[in-house]
């Protein structure tokens, strides 16, 4: 198995606060890797360091052999790393279809393409691709609807479709089921399971242990900016350190 993403010795401080301390992580190709940890453990900071939103104080982030630090978000996207946001980042004024068409265009056109005289209506291939992506998440029936008007759960699914249509090497999912009702959560788990066999590598940041244990091949536990454990779900489940730091509080859930 080859390594897709390697995080080496990453440190990040905000003011006097140490958010990440010497974090090392290797993500294997094709695997679903979950990163868990209590609130404020540094999960989001770690994610932001991967996708170019934050620049770590030290350490390296290597993706497919390329150094990612200091790269622009769109360069990281085209390198094959795509993030699905925790609070839905969609285009609320546009239709669902257009929301998915845009990432599809990004995949095809690159970071910039000047084609003002090409008609959108002639983009059959993109159109079909977008409709398939919407169908994947079960939103194809409402493709003409305004993205701002759909439910929060649907927005999350729309975002997932926007990520999936780019067919990335690595998909970063930031709490994909946060704020969802149980029913929606289950649907999302099913959906993620379904796409598992496409061979896409995934990182999932999640609170919900049910989701983590149903999806992850490998779990890393982050607490106070440090990785305290890493291993298969079973190993993590039985790790006393993890239990103490984290699971103990949430087992009753």
């Amino acid at each position: 198995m080859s390594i897709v993403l390697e995080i080496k010795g990453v440190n990040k401080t905000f003011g006097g606060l140490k958010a990440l301390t010497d974090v090392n992580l290797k993500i294997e190709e094709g695997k679903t890797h979950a990163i868990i940890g209590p609130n404020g453990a540094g999960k989001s900071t770690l994610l932001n360091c991967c996708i170019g939103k934050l620049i770590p104080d030290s350490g390296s982030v290597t993706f497919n052999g390329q150094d990612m630090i200091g790269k622009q978000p769109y360069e990281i996207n085209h390198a094959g790393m795509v993030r699905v946001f925790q609070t839905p980042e969609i285009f609320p004024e546009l239709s669902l279809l257009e929301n998915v068409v845009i990432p599809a265009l990004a995949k095809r056109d690159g970071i910039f393409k000047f084609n003002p005289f090409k008609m959108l209506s002639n983009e059959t291939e993109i159109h079909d691709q977008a409709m398939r992506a919407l169908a994947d998440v079960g939103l194809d029936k409402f493709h003409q609807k305004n993205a701002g008007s759909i439910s929060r759960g649907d927005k999350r699914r729309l975002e997932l479709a926007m990520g999936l249509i780019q067919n990335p090497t690595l998909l970063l999912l930031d709490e994909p089921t946060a704020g969802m009702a149980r029913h929606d959560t289950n649907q999302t788990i099913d959906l993620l399971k379904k796409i598992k066999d496409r061979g896409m590598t995934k990182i999932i940041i999640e609170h919900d242990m049910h989701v983590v244990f149903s999806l992850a091949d490998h779990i890393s536990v982050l607490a106070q900016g440090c990785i305290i454990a890493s291993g298969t779900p079973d190993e993590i489940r039985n790790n006393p350190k993890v239990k103490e730091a984290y699971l103990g509080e949430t087992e009753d859930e």
Partner: protein
Amino acid sequence: MTDKNEFDTLSRRGFLKASVAAAAVGAAPMFFMNNANAYTNAPKGGTFTLGFNVPQTGAYADEGADELRAFKLAVKHINGEGDGGMMNTMKPIVLKGNGVLGKKAVFVTGDTQTKSDAARASAKRMIEKDGALMISGGSSSGVAIAVQGLCQEAGVIFMAGLTHSNDTTGKDKRRYGFRHFFNAKMTGSALGPVLKEEMGTDRVAYHLTSDYTWGWTQEESIKETTEGLGWKTKATVRTPVGAGDFSQYITPILNSGADTLILNHYGKDMVNSLTQSVQFGLRDKMVNGKQFEIIVPLYSRLMAQGAGDNLKGILGTTNWNWALKDAGSKAFVKSFGAEYGFPPSQAAHTCYVQTLLYANACEMAGTFDPSQVIRSLEGFKFDGMGNGETEYRAEDHQCLKDVLVVRGNQNPSNQFDLLEIVKEVPRSQVEYDPAIFGGKLGPYKV
């Protein structure tokens, strides 16, 4: 919107076809264009149309409103209504008070906004839509020159309103443009002797000049005059138009060693710079053993009201003032005052006179054809219009006449009595060779 089946793209040919088809529909009005007339807007029926293009919005709106009042009065008098005003004093006059060539005068109005583009658009509307034979009015040289150029192209006579720049009848003069108002050059010539008398020949002048063409021509003309008297020029400082606060330009004067400040500002700029200069104590200063003096070469009573008491005792020139005692001025003030309840401004006066002169020239020419009317205006000598004997010089279409040197009234006897006449400088002293400014009038026929 990506639903591909619902539409096809428009091919280039389809687009062309669409345009051609529509062009055919739209071509019809082309035939309304009238090429048969010998000249633009030849009057049909019993009336002829005058276009009064004045600032109705912006800083000069009050001046524009006063111009419009004068125009309305002039039209009344031409048509034989009212008391006739200057129709009774103008010499020679062929107007009979029954309109012009048997046709009644009517007018249209428009807003110049004191912007060249807006003024031209407004004048074009008058020419193209309302059929105006003559355009008049305006309160700035930029507008006058812009509209004058347009009128030359359109073949319509332009009787300029308030415009004081040398360029209007200098480098930008036009065959179809006529100016009754005086100019910066004449201001300089008229001020010269008075300045010599009142302030001597050993002074150091400091100019604050509005940074645009009118300001520059005035600065140049005044400088020429004062240096001719033996004065020195310490500095000529350009100030942005509409600066509002001029303090940063006034402070350096204090240390400059100059003893005379010349404000080449007009309108709001003049009011502000004068008010602020006085506040800085310039007029109380003694420099080189002499009392510091401020001069405002071009005065307007209407705008000067804004400067209030700061105006008192300050020298300048004006084209005309209502307090003049000649028969023409009295007749005009009488009918204007009776109509509106207050005296006319110099802007109103020049617009009134211009309208009458145009009407008279048409009557003299026996036609409204501008090429003939121009010939009868060129070199026309007249009197009884408030400025003494006057001549429309043929070479540059500038009226040559007496210039008033005035001073802010120290002790006004009523609310309109702001200017005190120091001297009526005779025409012979302000005349100049028209060749010095260059420019070409252009053809009679366009």
